[in-house]
């Protein structure tokens, strides 16, 4: 047995609760920082402000003028949920650009020498982009209301519809975080919107019912998570949903399918983003 008594050593060992609290504090600081960026350059926000208004009006008046929905129904009523999901999907590329920019400018070196939680850089980014997505949803909804779109269900269902869409947008934000870290810089990140997000948004039931597509494309579109989310919103808003007659499981259970898709994407993208961040910042 040792005769000496060990001296108490001062070790920095915060409790799990303290850790969580300081982690959240870091996340909030990073979120606020990203929001200041947006305020400083409002044009950065154009993809969640001006673009939704433009797209909504363009698609409803240009496409809608020639569109007859199978099974009846007003195109405006049909298209709004689709435009909501399309705008949310394409605007998530902002996460990829923002993160790619942060990683290639000097500020990341400053952050990495601070005793902050490294994950708060990623989480702060996705939360500020979720807030931007909420703004985007509000603008689409207001544009829709202004031109005569009306939900026919109760407020709880309407809110649930927006909730499903925002959860999906949050999942895509994490996917974009991964893409943003996998590419070299902000310019390459910009390319992602065309390569990944546009096909994802367009090969779906967002603008047109899938029934008229070639069989193979129809299968892809019916299983595209974007179709599930658009259908879920149509169901929850009480708007026409021609996809309801399609036998594919996601079209029969759009709300469940949307939630499963979102959670599955998050389950893959969140840990992957952490790994990519560590890999990106090792040297």
């Amino acid at each position, binding site marked *: 047995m040792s005769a000496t008594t060990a001296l108490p050593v001062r070790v920095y060992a915060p409790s799990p609760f303290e850790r969580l609290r300081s982690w959240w504090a*870091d996340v909030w600081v990073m979120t606020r920082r990203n929001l*200041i*960026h947006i305020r400083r350059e409002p044009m950065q926000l154009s993809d969640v402000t001006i673009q939704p208004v433009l797209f909504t009006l363009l698609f409803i008046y240009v496409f809608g003028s020639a569109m007859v929905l199978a099974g009846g129904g007003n195109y405006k009523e049909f298209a709004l949920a689709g435009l909501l999901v399309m705008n949310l999907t394409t605007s998530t590329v902002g996460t990829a650009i923002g993160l790619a920019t942060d990683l290639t400018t000097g500020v990341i070196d*400053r952050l990495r020498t601070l*005793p902050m939680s490294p994950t708060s850089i990623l989480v702060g980014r996705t939360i500020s982009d979720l807030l931007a997505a909420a703004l985007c949803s509000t603008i689409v909804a207001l544009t829709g209301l202004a031109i005569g779109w009306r939900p026919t269900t109760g407020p709880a269902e309407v809110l649930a519809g927006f909730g499903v869409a925002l959860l999906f947008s949050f999942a895509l934000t994490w996917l974009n975080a991964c893409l943003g870290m996998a590419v070299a810089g902000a310019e390459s990140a910009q390319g992602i919107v065309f390569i990944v997000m546009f096909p994802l948004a367009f090969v779906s039931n967002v603008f047109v019912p899938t029934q008229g597509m070639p069989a193979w494309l129809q299968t892809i579109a019916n299983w595209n998570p974007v179709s599930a989310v658009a259908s879920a919103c149509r169901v929850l808003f009480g708007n026409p949903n021609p996809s309801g007659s399609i036998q594919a499981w996601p079209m029969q259970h759009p709300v469940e399918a949307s939630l499963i898709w979102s959670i599955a994407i998050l389950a893959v993208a969140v840990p992957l983003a952490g790994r990519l961040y560590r890999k990106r910042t*090792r040297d």
Partner: protein
Amino acid sequence: MNQQMMIEAVALSKRYGETQALDKVDLEVPAGSILGVLGPNGAGKTTGVRILTTLTAPDGGRAWVAGHDVVHEAPAVRREIGVTGQDATLDEALTGRQNLVMVGQLSRLRRSQARRRAAELLELFELTDAADRVVKGYSGGMRRRLDLAASLVKRPPVLFLDEPTTGLDPTSRQRMWGVIRGLVAEGVTLWLTTQYLDEADALADRIAVIDHGRVIAQGTPRELKAATGSQLLEVTLTDPHGGASAAVAAFALGAVNLSDDGRRLRTVVRSQAGLSTTVLRALDQAGARVDDIAVHQPSLDDVFAALTGADTTAESEAIVEGVLA
């Protein structure tokens, strides 16, 4: 070991592709002192700073800052250090004040504390007037000052400054030196990399000269100057004299430089006791009359040139001549 070492590197190595950026570097910095790390561009100075500040992992060797291993205890190291890199690490879209408050909050200060500290530092660095302007519009000198302020927010006991005065005008440089001296007076341990020999001479307690990733010399500025073993001899004759050059050449390590009017001789000589007397006697025997004789300690420039093989004196003289012509 009597003195506590705040920074310690043992056989620290890092390779980038073909380049050996650091090659088994051993260095230590006692608490409360300044180590000047001197070397030409690409010598490995910045790599050293990046490893010690946990930004880059070494390939070999180990290092401790404030007693914590930089690889295995990186979060603990980050609580003890302040860093100002060569490139500004500021958020361009935030104001100066917002930058400092953000750094403070991420360094575990409460918001109110962070705001108070930010105001203090803005005052200290004479940035109060620009505090609420976006950094994008700052001048180079203002950015440097704000960047240094950002590394001081949490009052770190160990500070790393990577070429803090590169690109500053002479006045800003003097001011920066004043700030650095003040910090060390408060007991901060400082790792200062620089390309400027006068800066290392003026500020550092000890200097390590790095070239091609290796420490090629270290010691106090005085030790380094003595270590080259050479001094600069300057003789002014009353009238030009044919035998003077030959008399001086007997002591010279290199060529004897004769001025156009034939009265001034300059050469590098080996240090030895009673040198002036001996040279004077030799000139007297040659029949030359001497107005003035002086033996100078070499400047750090001369030391640096001797160590790295780079002829900085010749280069700067060429520049001066170019300007005068």
